[in-house]
């Protein structure tokens, strides 16, 4: 289905269309068409054997008005696993500078900050964990927000303010395409028990606020962050219904990043205040916690980069948690340690990228491997293959619960 695009007539036609859009309307048009398929590498009694099967057309349009830039990016997606066709609007925003020292971006947009590599402390913005685990492009780990972002630039510091009038939330593992540990059933579940959630969804009331203060001193990047809103994943359950809920959350965090020993070092600290469970005694709501992240990345040899990170979650009020945990529920650890390793090798004039990212938690005795091979066949075509390999000794730990979802995928993309 993707192959007819390779015919020169079709490629030429697309180029003509792009030129026409630009010449007539000054619209910059780009995008790609991609086919992506993947399989579970073992039987999963609760899920299909196909982990991913989709055709995706991304269209990226932008127009530069005199002082304002309009950006629209959307994906048309045919998904054979969920058996649906979906329109995924990723960007619909206006950017402008109302004043010399101010940038404004309003509308649907992807938001990211913080220093972690696939680990997050300060970044409270929505993620799409399903896309990440089934082997979509890393672009899709970040889910968009409907937000207004104001950036202010002063001599002393820079300040970013983000207002999200209605809570967005992350895409989490609900059982519809990935099996997971279900604490109510006390076993792994999947399509036989798809969790439902109740999102805070009052426009203007269930809002999120985030801010960041940054200062770059001779290459040393310092930042302070604040967030006031909700847990992005449903870290609570209403035991009566039982429906997943999004408890209130505030985050205060700080980071530093700098050149170090010929590489880049970063450190991030955060306090997650789970405001609906101040005492830590409510077993149905995640406790407050401290998070700590430190990492280092550098070139090991030419076109070969290595990075390591250490990440810690420390649960506050652990005694309260222990005392109130219902009989038969699996107990989480007070400290959750995670180590990551990234290795990236570029070859063949950087057209072939071999990368390997690993999460390993010594406290949970589980982990997650992400091998990936990406080859740019030419300026238009890219082929990719990789895997999402979960392991662990228990069914209820963070990565261990996804063992039966271990999958391999491949894709072919035509960019225009």
């Amino acid at each position, binding site marked *: 289905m993707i192959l007819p695009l390779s015919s020169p007539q079709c490629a030429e036609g697309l180029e003509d269309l792009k030129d026409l859009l630009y010449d007539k309307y000054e619209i910059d048009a780009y995008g790609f068409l991609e086919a992506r398929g993947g399989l579970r590498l073992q039987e999963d009694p609760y899920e299909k054997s196909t982990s991913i099967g989709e055709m995706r057309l991304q269209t990226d349009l932008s127009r530069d008005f005199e002082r304002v830039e309009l950006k629209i990016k959307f994906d048309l997606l045919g998904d054979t696993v969920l058996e649906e066709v979906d329109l995924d609007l990723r960007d619909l925003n206006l950017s402008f500078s109302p004043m010399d020292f101010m940038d404004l971006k309003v509308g649907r*947009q992807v938001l990211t900050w913080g220093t972690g590599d696939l680990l997050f402390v300060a970044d409270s913005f929505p993620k799409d964990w399903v896309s990440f685990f089934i082997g979509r492009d890393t672009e899709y780990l970040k889910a968009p927000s409907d937000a207004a972002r104001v950036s202010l630039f002063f001599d002393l510091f820079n300040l970013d303010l983000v207002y999200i009038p209605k809570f967005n939330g992350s895409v989490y593992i609900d059982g519809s395409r990935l099996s997971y540990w279900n604490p109510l059933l006390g076993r792994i579940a999947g399509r036989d028990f798809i969790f439902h959630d109740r999102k805070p969804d009052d426009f203007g009331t269930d809002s999120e606020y985030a801010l960041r203060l940054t200062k770059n001193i001779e290459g040393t990047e310092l930042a302070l962050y604040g967030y006031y809103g909700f847990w992005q994943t449903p870290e609570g359950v209403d035991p009566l219904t039982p429906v997943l809920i999004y408890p209130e959350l505030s985050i205060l965090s700080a980071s530093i990043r700098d050149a170090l020993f010929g*590489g880049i070092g970063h450190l991030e600290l955060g306090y997650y205040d789970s405001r609906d469970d101040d005492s830590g005694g409510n077993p149905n709501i995640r406790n407050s916690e401290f998070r700590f992240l430190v990492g280092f990345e550098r070139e090991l040899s030419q076109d070969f980069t290595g990075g390591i990170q250490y990440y810690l979650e420390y649960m506050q009020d652990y005694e309260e948690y222990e005392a109130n945990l219902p009989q038969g529920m699996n107990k989480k650890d007070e400290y959750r340690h995670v180590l990551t390793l990234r290795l990236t090798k570029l070859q063949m004039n950087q057209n072939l990228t071999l990368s390997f990212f690993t999460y390993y938690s010594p406290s949970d005795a589980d982990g997650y491997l992400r091998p990936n091979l990406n080859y740019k066949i030419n300026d238009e075509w890219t082929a990719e293959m990789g895997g999402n390999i979960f392991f662990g000794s228990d069914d209820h730990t963070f990565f261990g619960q996804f063992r039966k979802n271990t999958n391999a995928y491949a894709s072919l993309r035509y960019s225009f």
Partner: protein
Amino acid sequence: MKSVKIATTVMIFFILGLSSHAEESPSVDEIIDRANRAAYYSGDDGRSTVKMTITDPQGRSREREFNILRHDVSDGGAQHFYVYFKKPSDVRKMAFLVHKHIDRDDDRWLYLPALDLVKRIAASDKRTSFVGSHFFYEDVSGRGVAEDSHEIVEVTDTRFVIKNVPKDPGSVEFASYTVWIDKNTYMPMKAEYVDKSGNKYREVEALEVLEIQGFPTVTKSRVRDLADGGETVSEFTEIEYNIGLDEQIFTERYLRRPPREAR
């Protein structure tokens, strides 16, 4: 025209009190310093559109197109570069920021618009490929003149020929390189790199030099990998100097929102 230039050169030498005889060669450090300024420091700032054609040993070619902005913090010293990618479409709208330092490693940031991610990049090895081309980072932003010891090996009618030996041989892939510098403009016209076993394996060449706003400017250059036969040709257009770039452009703010001058 040529006689005017020679007269200017003579006058500069006279003012600097170095020599009043045009045929007498300036010192090697003087040549290297002037060549460095001619190649990388024209004006206080500048912009250019670069089209790179990368050809692999099998003859397959790929294209890169980007706009590059430069701002000199001090003449012959620290500089800022901003690179905004236009082609191919998978890197389009990515922005790359370099703070070049003389006394320590450069600072580099890459902005990935799809993730809204400002990624800081380790910059210890400057002799790695720039965007998959045969050009190294160092070819784009300049190699620190103090990193090599220099020696004049020949002075021809038109060129100073200078051999450069790295002070820290372990940090680079070459044993030495020889540069042919135009005696008139001080523009490095050709560089040949020799590896540790004495083989010439890499060649960087200015294919076309034009005068733009009074500055001799390389408008076409080529790097050849003599070992495998691959090469990259860069063509520079829409070149401008002294455009009064705001220093603020070279900060995270403009990675997220590319400045008009780079678009």
